[in-house]
């Protein structure tokens, strides 16, 4: 279960963000909506433990973020949280297959090559195993970045505007795949977006 309590955050004390409390069970998904500048990305980075909130509590399953040191938070994130960004990024000098293996290595998981192949097949990238990231189309890149974050079977998947640069067909495909993968791994899924095309596909949403 993911649970947040009265999180607020400030950059240099100038603009202050107060975030609503959320509660999410395993395999639940949540859409976070809002216009530019309301702190959507800040919220997701706080949930990822990349930014420390000024006050408030975050619990992911039994772990309280406030009780983790910086290093412990890094390791915790590596193992338990998968992130997907608006513009997918990869390790440029590794092919897609090796990028996934690296993700497993860094999150201290077993480098199970069979599972990597299987996942890439599921995401329709079965013939792109040896491709370098720069050689993929935008839709393929976004699918590969889903693979990169779900290969370690995280408890929480955080997606920051995953569809905003995609066409309609790819947009629908990405959302479908994200939901499938989250359900399969019993992961909690949070998608931040201002993309109206996907609003209808989630029954739980909050607006910042």
């Amino acid at each position: 279960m993911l649970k947040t309590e009265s999180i607020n955050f400030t950059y240099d004390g100038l603009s202050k963000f107060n975030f609503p409390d959320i509660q999410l069970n395993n395999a639940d998904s949540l859409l976070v909506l809002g216009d530019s500048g309301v702190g959507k990305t800040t919220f997701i980075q706080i949930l990822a433990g990349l930014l420390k909130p000024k006050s408030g509590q975050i619990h992911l399953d039994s772990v309280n973020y406030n009780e983790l040191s910086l290093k412990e938070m890094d390791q915790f994130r590596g193992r338990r949280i998968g992130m997907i960004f608006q513009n997918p990024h990869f390790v440029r000098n590794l092919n897609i297959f090796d990028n996934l293996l690296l993700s497993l290595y860094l999150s201290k998981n077993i480098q199970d090559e069979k599972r990597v192949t299987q996942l890439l097949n599921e995401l329709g990238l079965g013939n792109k195993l040896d491709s370098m990231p720069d050689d993929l189309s935008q839709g393929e890149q976004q699918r590969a970045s889903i693979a990169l974050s779900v290969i370690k079977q995280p408890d929480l998947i955080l997606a920051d505007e995953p569809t905003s640069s995609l066409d309609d067909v790819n947009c629908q495909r990405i959302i479908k795949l994200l939901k499938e993968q989250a359900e399969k791994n019993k992961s909690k899924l949070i998608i931040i977006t201002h993309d109206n095309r996907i609003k209808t596909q989630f029954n739980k949403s909050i607006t910042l």
Partner: protein
Amino acid sequence: MNISRLAWRNIIYNPLNTILSILLMTFGVGVISLLLLLNNQIDKQLQDNLRGIDMVIGAKGSPLQLILSSIYHIDNPTGNISYKEVEKLTKNTMVDQTIPLSYGDSYNGFRIVGTTQEYIDLYDADLSKGVLWDKSMQVVIGSTVADITNLSIGDMFCGTHGFGDDGHVHDHHHYEVVGILKQSNTTIDKLIITDTKSVWDVHNTHDHHTCEDHDHHDHHHADENHNEDIYNSEKFMITSMLVRFKSPVAFIQMPRKVNETTNLQAAMPVLEINRLTSLLGFGVQTVNLIALIIIIVSGLSIFFSLYNSLKNRRYELALIRVHGATKLQLIKLVFLEGLTISTLGTIFGLMTSRLILFSTSFMVNQQQMLNSIEYILITDELWLFSISLFIGLIASLIPAIITSKINIPKVLSNA
């Protein structure tokens, strides 16, 4: 997949930068290593041939010339001296051993040296074939001489006056090869060694056999009665005298005595060789400095290429951190990239210098040089290795620090 493999991929997927950095490192290390090896070889040759000779007495002239001609046989003699006069000086309790040298003739460019058999002992030279001479006009030849001239036991030849090919041929006098020495990697390999009497005979007697007269085997070498007592003859001249001291006091007293009270010259090999190597050393140091600058430039090139690639890979590095990489792993990644390049450059450099040395000595057919190439690292090269690695380390340091301080949320939100 792990950090080392990732570092390796980053290196090979950036071939132009990598090759430039490695080439610069190879070049710098190669030049220094080549100089170190050559220096080492020259030093070794110089030292190997000293053989505990403390002083050389010869005719007045350049002391360095006297040393070069008498010990290394690479310069012309300074002139002749009277054996009697030298003997007077060296019949002294401070003197341990004296060996007279008479030279001035050559055969096919190889010097014919008249001396005593103690000279062979001085170089610990062993015979590979034949025997040592027991009378005048018999010679023992060094291994290089045997290889190149194809002379073998029983062969006869005539010496040429001087060391070039165009000198006067002493065609009334045949030398006979009676022994061939094993290779010793010293100057003796390139000498034709005979008794002092032979040189005396060639220059002071006349007999009537011609060199072309190869069938003539019953010739008598020289008038033995005439030469029986050459060491006591006032007219007996030698070229120089190698001297070994018994007591250290002699180092101070003997040269002064010779130089101040006689027409002769005493030269101290150790002093002259030090003078020579310090002269060479200056040139070597200049080239070393230039090569060191090349290594530093290579370090800079490693620095720039790491720095640049990190700037381009900021998002990638943040991503790796998000996936769970620790700061230490990122630092390790950067250092591995820098150190791999500098290590490869250094190893290639050390290999290149050996390859150059090997191929040049092979091409000029310098067997002696070929045999003395050090294929393992010499001490100075361990320093060179450490310095290059250190430079690689320094070059990686700043990029590593920048990497470890990367602000992940900021990088991710600016993407």
